[in-house]
């Protein structure tokens, strides 16, 4: 079971990354418009 000594901290690091991503999302205001941004994909996007 020694592998757990690697896996568990690794799992924590991964979830830490997810948390970091979430914080970025919150900061960029993605949670402020749940209605509009949710439907945004329906718009025809002009090719960048």
């Amino acid at each position, binding site marked *: 079971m020694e592998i757990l000594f690697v896996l568990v901290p690794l799992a924590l690091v991964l979830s830490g990354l997810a948390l970091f991503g979430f914080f970025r999302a919150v900061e960029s205001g993605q*949670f402020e418009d749940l209605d509009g941004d949710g439907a945004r994909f329906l718009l025809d996007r002009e090719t960048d």
Partner: protein
Amino acid sequence: MTSPSVIILLDKLHCINCVQAVEQYLKTLPGVLRAHVNLTQKRAQLDIRPEDFQAEEVLAGLAQRGYPGRFLEEHQERKTQSSDSEQKQILRKMAFAGCVAGNLMLMSASLYIGQFQGIDNPLQRLFEVLSFCLATPVVIYSASHFYGPALSALRHGRVTMDFPITLGLFATYTLSTVAFFRGLPQQYFDTVTAFVFVLLVGRYFQSLGMSKVQTSLNFLAGLRPEKVRIKSCCGSREIPLAQLAVGDIVLLQENDQVPADGRLIEGFLEVEEAALTGESLPQERGKEARIYAGTRVFSGRGEYLVEAVGGSTVVSRLAQLVEESQLQRSTEGRLSSVLASRFSLLIVVMALATWCFWLPAGVDKATLVATSLLVITCPCALGLALPLAFWTAVRRGVEQGVLVRDESALEESAQITDLVLDKTGTLTSGNPTLLQETLTRKRSEQEVASLVLALEKTSTHPFALKLKSRFATFEAVQGLEVEEQIGLGRAARAPGKEYFIGRLPALKEGQFDIGLTENGELLATWQFADPIRPEAYNLVTHLQERALNLHIASGDKRETTEKVAAVLGIENFHGEMLPEDKVRLVESLQARGRKVALLGDGINDSPAMSCADVGVAMGHASVVTTLSAPVLLLRPGLAPVLSWLELARSYRQVVRRNIAISITYNLLAIPTAALGYVSPLMAAIAMPLASLAVVASSLRSESRVK
């Protein structure tokens, strides 16, 4: 270096296509570097290059495309930003707590199973160390949302609901930490973090709900035109909004923003009141209908008499109401917060008692049991669900045209046994037809007309309005100082002359409603017919079904009052009532132990309304009445009366249900915990479940279709 940004409020955004249209337009403009539309908050945020940015043209272009808007003002910006950042804070704390809680729960599962199956010591130690190291920042950071306010309330000598939560958290954490360092199994870091997470989820949803209300209100308060067109002596002129005063007549046409509250006196409009009621279909408004600041004229044209400006408008009052409650932590005397603090104290005392009681079994055991007690009991019904129930009721109320000032108004409304109704304008349409006009020959029609116009200049009584429109082609006499005699009429003095228009109870001869006198001599009389509102019959039936006693109290003649009462089937009626008489009526009912609500619409109702248990200002009420009324009906007519009663009833139901759930839960949980049958983990699961149940119960009334 970031470019400056501006925000444009756009109330006409309602779907993703609008978002697209606006964004595409904005992006084509010079001076606009970036444009992002937020559909939920109905606003567009633009990064601009100030030199090229043409504010007026941008607004014009948007309006042309069907999206009129205005720039968000500075002071409002601060308000919205703070609620934004509060939400962001909650999200971050919540995410952190949740992330840690999830991981800790997995590790705890292993530790738990390990207690039975056996677990390698190094592995056990790994999990324990990780649990401690991860839980600690959660307690310091995420839990600050609770212990921060709890401590600052404590510093002001008050105990809020956050206090037992904080105590429970710290007790559990301390216990677990001590156990960690001593190598004992009682480590509940997963419980602590899960507890914090669940609580924060609840707070986030609460904050979401609040900010939606806040958004629409901020937005309403800013929705006022800069210039207003008013009627003046020679046609019309434009004045800045700040100069608009009560008594001015505003001219409205299509696409106008309504600048102030008032009553329509001429014309016909369709008004879109989505900002106020959430109803996006334009509503028809004819004469005598009330128009509210913050709404928009969809079509038609008309003139309306301004009755309330600025901070006195319904919209501003609503905003104030929300603002006051946003500072809910500092509201005093509110039933729920008072109860919550008593309850919190009680819990703390019980926890201490339990701790002492269990001391013989060891400090660890005692702390464990006491902690479980602290964690499992939650005054969430009081601290969370009751305010939520109130807010839900307020929101539903506004949608149905009922504005409630505070919880006690709603609570009292549910206990009403007697309803005192005004006659003119409430049960009757308030749009009287002139039956007969008699002019004695003492003065010419023109003189009579000019006197009437002068005396009734600021009156909004249905009879006065009728007379004013009848004599609209004449000019008012200048220089008269008019004095209102509440409940009777208006009087004025000029050198050597005394004028009066109104009820003349002394002169019983002949049948008329209003008379004009000069030095006591009758110049003219008018008789009106005031048809009963068609919905009045329905209302009376419904009210009687609810076993409510109805009373008509009117300032008008006894005979007309009696007639109306007979037609509607109301037994108790009183005519020729002065304001003091109405007060006496209310008091006599209250002396008999009844709970009285008074539905009024004029200044003459104000004293009685404050005396009554609940004062309800009708949709067409004068401004002074609305300012002090605990309940304000936003729509004309009698339909809101039923909505109001229904609202009070369902609110009471929800409150009772919540209290019942909370009490039952606590009665079961507290003894169980005190007797030591509950581990902190079980407590941490049970408590949020209980609060969720209470929250769900409050929101259940939301989904009921009305």
